[in-house]
């Protein structure tokens, strides 16, 4: 897949048709994916301005319930001596090579396509929440409208139609780059080859397929700092 936004315009018509007929959170027939590809994402934090356009685009594209997010950008203030600076960290499902959410699923509702995308078959999911517990990235939640597990799908309905994920498509600074990790000529492969990239929670051993450029070491795993004072009341704010 070519990750140039301009070239993707050609696929928009087909993609729009596909998204119009496919419920974004339902996978009635299990798409298997192309075994010749391995989809991944590189988030270039140098380009991310923390505008949450990706958060909004994802919610619009996938119709997630109010207050539930498949991706979100967290903001931090880091102090290096007496020099504070802002840091942003977009978080989403890492579509791990060794996804811990799959073996715990008691009914096999969570599965991985041949192209690496981890999905939830919400016609089979019993909503037990075991996968939510097992995910080290807190990337899953129980969708209160469907009563089933929900998470980022890399917008597989768009990807299968030749489009980019909604968050990538909408990213103002071009900070999210999506593509085929098995193709050395893809934009993601070139970024990985040319830059130092980091992954979140590497110690978990899940082989995440979302990589970051410019990630501060203090944000790589569980953040030890002062929590946001507004965090706990988000649910109340939106309800």
């Amino acid at each position: 897949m070519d990750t140039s936004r301009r070239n993707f315009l050609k696929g928009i018509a087909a993609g729009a048709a596909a998204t119009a007929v496919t419920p974004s959170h339902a996978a009635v027939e299990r798409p298997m994916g192309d075994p010749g590809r391995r989809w991944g994402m590189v988030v270039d934090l140098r380009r991310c301005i923390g505008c949450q356009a990706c958060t909004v685009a994802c919610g619009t594209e996938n119709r997630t319930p109010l207050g539930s997010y498949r991706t979100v950008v967290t903001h931090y203030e880091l102090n290096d001596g007496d020099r504070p600076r802002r840091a942003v960290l977009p978080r989403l499902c890492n579509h791990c090579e060794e996804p811990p959410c799959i073996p715990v699923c008691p009914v096999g509702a969570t599965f991985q396509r041949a192209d690496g995308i981890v999905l939830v078959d919400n016609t089979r999911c019993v909503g037990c929440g075991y996968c939510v517990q097992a995910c080290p990235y807190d990337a899953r939640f129980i969708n209160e409208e469907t009563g089933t597990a929900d998470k980022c799908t890399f917008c597989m309905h768009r990807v299968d139609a030749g489009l980019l994920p909604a968050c990538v498509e909408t990213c103002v600074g071009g900070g999210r780059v999506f593509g085929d990790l098995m193709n050395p000529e893809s934009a993601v492969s070139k970024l990985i080859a040319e830059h130092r990239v980091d992954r979140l929670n590497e110690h978990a051993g899940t082989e995440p397929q979302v990589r970051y450029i410019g990630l501060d070491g203090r944000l790589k795993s569980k953040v030890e700092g002062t929590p946001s004072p507004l965090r706990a009341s988000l649910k109340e704010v939106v309800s």
Partner: protein
Amino acid sequence: MNPELLELTGFAHEPAWLPWAVQYFFLIGLSVGAFLITLPTYVLRRRSDDGTARAALIAALTTGLAAPIALLADLHQPDRFWHFYLYGQHTSWMAWGAFFLPAYAGLLTLYGWLCLRPELAARAGSGGPVGRIDGLLAGSGRRLPGAQRTVGWLTAGAAALVALYTGAEVAVVAARPLWHSALLPVVYLATGVAGGAGLALLFANRAPAATQGLLRWLCVALALTGLTVIAWVLGLGGSGPARALLGLAEHRPLTFGLWLTAGLLVPLALAWFGRAPVAAGLLAIAGAWMWRWEIFMGGQALPKNSAGFYGVHLSPGPEGLLGIVGTLGLWVLIALALTTLLRPTANAQG
């Protein structure tokens, strides 16, 4: 808290396992624990007080029959429970539990019927609608010691599997350091036996021999709980779980202190000195519940990636307080039905 790093935006993740899960693990823990207390008398045929085993059996039956309902309610798609049997995955402890739990509940019911059959037959002659039901349930009322022992062993196997799966299901979750401890199943079992003995004390009707026997079980179970928690804090179950438990205690000092004193030390002292058995039993039951509440709800309030603590909130609706009250109500209903079939309890003690 690290003042060098401030989280400006973030959001609290809602717990995926609701208080229903606490209720399930509480009830099934008490059931398995109480069932173990019946084994010396009904299966091993050792000389021990029959009243101890009878009270523990009633505790095991009532909690064991109420527990699966709480588990079903914790599913966000309860009407799809049959998917466990159609699509079961051998890699998931929860999938195995879907087989272990009904096996245990079914065998426990059969075991209880075999053990209580002669008593039901004795009640059948008392007349009235309850007597007629007793008569129907008792059949010939003849003791079947061979069948009782065989079914008892099978139930013991199922109980062991339930204890194993309920502990392992949570302990394998590496993403939550608090849960990822090999000691977690041990504490579950120990608090389950303590709570089971505590509940049995309420059914023992203050019979001296039964009370003494149950207080001994209570004492041993609470001591094991305390020792295991000390080992946990010392890091024998891993440094991550030790840090997480201390972190949870730091965030919730009042509730953790309440569990430690009212749920562990006070009932242990009462059991040790043989005082106030009903109070000791009630506190042990509360301790078993509080431990599970703290581990499940407190554990989910410890962020996996974010800073700080989300906080534990109990909503008044069915996903919160109403669920807890409803489960308790179901247990009361089952307990009333069973004790009515077996009344008068005092006469049954002889």
